[in-house]
């Protein structure tokens, strides 16, 4: 296997490129538009709170997914990983979701007066919220959210745009620059995920407090980004692109998925156990709303989908590199991440879990829109970073 072949692009399978069959595209567009109609009807037929909760959920879902993919890119540069170089273009494309998310996030700020007690006018009269009024109030909250979303474009600009340009100019200087920038990117990533967790999740109930909620959301974010990356890799591989991605590369993706299911469970249970043990009234009410009554079923389903099923599905060696197994486990994990955010946000709306046509419409609109965006993004640049000097080494990777 020669690196020269990779450089000329012949092994990345450009010949089979092209916009995928239009039937799928038309179906996707119809579903997305159908979902859009449902979404437009939601505030009138199901109430503003439900509309904003769904909007916020999907904004956070896609934000964490894109940030998780960006984290994978930055992680590779940070630790000079070689195995993931041939795969790097995929999370780079997934991270491009951060661009439309600036608009989605700006709209999501409409949820502030509806769902966030700290941003309402009567917050000034509440002794628990008066001291936090500046932090939780709409002006600084909005500035913070928009600042963070724009800050997220910086790593996208440096790492992803630079990587695409390296395809053309084959300049190894970008690789050096990216490795130098990676630590700063990690700091930005940590700031963004923590901000999302503390503001959007914690802000729903300002009296409740958890130190670890940022790490909790990070675990879910990385899993979501990784699952999307895995699905995209398998999709491209199934279409004859990424031909040189072997069992060994897939095994590493599967190993990451496996490891981070355990990490998510560890963090989730650690938070629950500490609050259960201390039994402090201002902490435990948050869990009471989420594991008592009908929400207990959601919590158990979450434990099954986010831990038990992926853990036992990926525990053996062969399973971690098996495309069929990885595909359905990645789908389960993406569903579990949605359920995770649903379990975090929707208890605000009532004692019974809501799930009917508004949730389905939002899933069609945002899910369909995301797939359409990613289908377009999958045609950007080469399928592998052909300008990266370590691509050959990455292709030779063996376990």
């Amino acid at each position, binding site marked *: 296997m020669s690196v020269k072949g990779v450089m000329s692009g012949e092994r990345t399978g450009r010949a089979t490129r092209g916009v995928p069959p239009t039937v799928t595209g038309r179906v996707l567009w119809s579903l997305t538009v159908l979902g859009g109609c449902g979404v437009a009807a939601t505030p009138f037929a199901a109430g503003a709170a439900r509309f904003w909760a769904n909007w916020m959920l999907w904004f956070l879902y896609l934000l964490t997914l894109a940030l998780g993919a960006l984290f994978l890119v930055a992680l590779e540069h940070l630790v000079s990983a070689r195995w993931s170089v041939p795969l790097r273009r995929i999370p780079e494309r997934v991270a491009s979701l951060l661009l439309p998310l600036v608009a989605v996030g700006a709209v999501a700020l409409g949820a502030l007066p509806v769902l966030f007690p700290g941003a309402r006018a009567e917050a000034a009269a509440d002794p628990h919220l008066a001291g936090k009024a500046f932090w939780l109030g709409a002006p600084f909250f909005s500035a913070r959210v928009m600042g963070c979303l724009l800050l997220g474009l910086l790593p996208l600009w440096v790492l992803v745009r630079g990587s695409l340009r390296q395809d053309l100019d084959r300049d190894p200087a970008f690789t050096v620059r990216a490795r130098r920038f990676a630590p700063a990117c990690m700091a930005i990533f940590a700031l963004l995920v923590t901000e999302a967790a503390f503001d959007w999740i914690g802000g729903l109930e300002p009296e409740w407090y958890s130190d670890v909620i940022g790490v909790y959301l990070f675990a879910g974010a990385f899993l979501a980004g990784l699952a999307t990356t895995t699905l995209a890799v398998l999709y491209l591989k199934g279409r004859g692109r990424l031909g040189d991605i072997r069992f060994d590369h897939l095994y590493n993706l599967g190993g990451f998925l496996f490891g981070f299911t355990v990490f998510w469970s560890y963090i989730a*249970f650690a938070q*629950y*156990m500490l609050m*259960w*043990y201390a*039994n402090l009234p201002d902490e435990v009410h948050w869990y009471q709303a989420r594991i008592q009554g009908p929400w207990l079923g959601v919590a158990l389903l979450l434990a099954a989908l986010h831990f038990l099923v992926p853990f036992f599905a990926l*525990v*053996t*060696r062969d399973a971690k590199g098996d495309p069929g197994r990885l595909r359905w486990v990645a789908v389960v994990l993406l569903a579990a991440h949605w359920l995770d955010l649903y379990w975090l946000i929707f208890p605000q709306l009532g004692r019974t879990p809501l799930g009917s046509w508004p949730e389905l419409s939002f899933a069609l609109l945002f899910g369909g829109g995301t797939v359409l965006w990613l289908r377009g993004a999958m045609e950007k640049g080469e399928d592998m970073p052909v300008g990266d000097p370590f691509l050959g080494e990455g292709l030779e990777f*063996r376990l």
Partner: protein
Amino acid sequence: MTDLNAGSFAVLGLFDSPDALMAAIPRVRARALGRLEAYTPYPVHGLDEALGLRRSPLGGMVLVMGVLGVVAALVFQGWLSAVDYPLVTGGKAPSSWQAFVPIMFEIMVLFATFTAGLGMLLLLNRLPYFGHPVLQSRAIRGITRDRFALAVEADGGLDPAAAASARSALEAAGALDIEVLPEPAAGPLFTAEGIQRTLAAIVAACVGAGMLMYWAVKLMPVLPPMSHILEQPRLNPQAPSTFFRDGHGMQLPVPGTVARGFLPFPARTPEAAAGMVNPLPVTRAVLARGRSEYQVRCAVCHGALGDGVPTLTAAYGAKPANLLAPANLALSDGRIYGTIVLGKNAMPSYAADLAEDDRWAVVHYVRALQRAQHAKDEDLP
């Protein structure tokens, strides 16, 4: 084992590159001469598949032991905390699964890592294995630097005919240097001398440890075990205290304090208590309690039936009251209660022995005895 002609451990062929080794493996494997083993200075990719090595069973072993660790920790903690010695800790139910999870996790890790480490070393790598024959071979210098060895081995050794065909197979596959390794001699560990030495070493170690312990106890101050139980922040009687303003550890109760179960009793004579009313209802539980206390405290003098004729009367010439006598039948509940608290004639006070409720329960039981001994027809069920 010492007969070198019985067979050889392995036939070893050297190659000068991993590619040559990989090319030779299928050619030697095709002859099916025995177990193939490769010795290389660094890991060579694809070697396991080429040699046809079976997948290591270690993963399955670790999984089974990890699950066993989780189950063992769950069962043990559940039995201990909820069945054998139920104890409320921190206001949680004795069978709180949440509290078991960290231990379950840790025991799982312990079982899994021990299985992985010891299973790999002792079971699968067959250690301890002192003096592996390859370490004594001529080829070992090359194997640890820049040569790649392919060995034909067999459990129980190769007989001379098999060794000869292995040699020819390796020659045909292009081996540069071929070496026949003899069976390893049995180690000196299990000879009579070795066993004697081992026993002597154990005895010497025991004597040494005993002497060390003896002198450690003699020379070092012995710490009381679990001394922290003595160091709790509490007030010792008669000891000074920096907590209270007057500096005394012992304090009078706050004015108006009533000790639990010891209500004030202002009457000075049993007659003065005659007006008190029994606060306890007549239930099966109260009567059972009254009977228990009566039989422990009262029956020794007043008799099991309350007739004042127990064995003690004959022995000491005492004349305890006959509770069934008409004069005593007419006594009020409060009057009997007062006698229990204050005593009468030779009967001492039972205030210190019977708690408030126990006294009233005894009064009920005395009433039951009286009624039982003067039962009327309508009392029969």
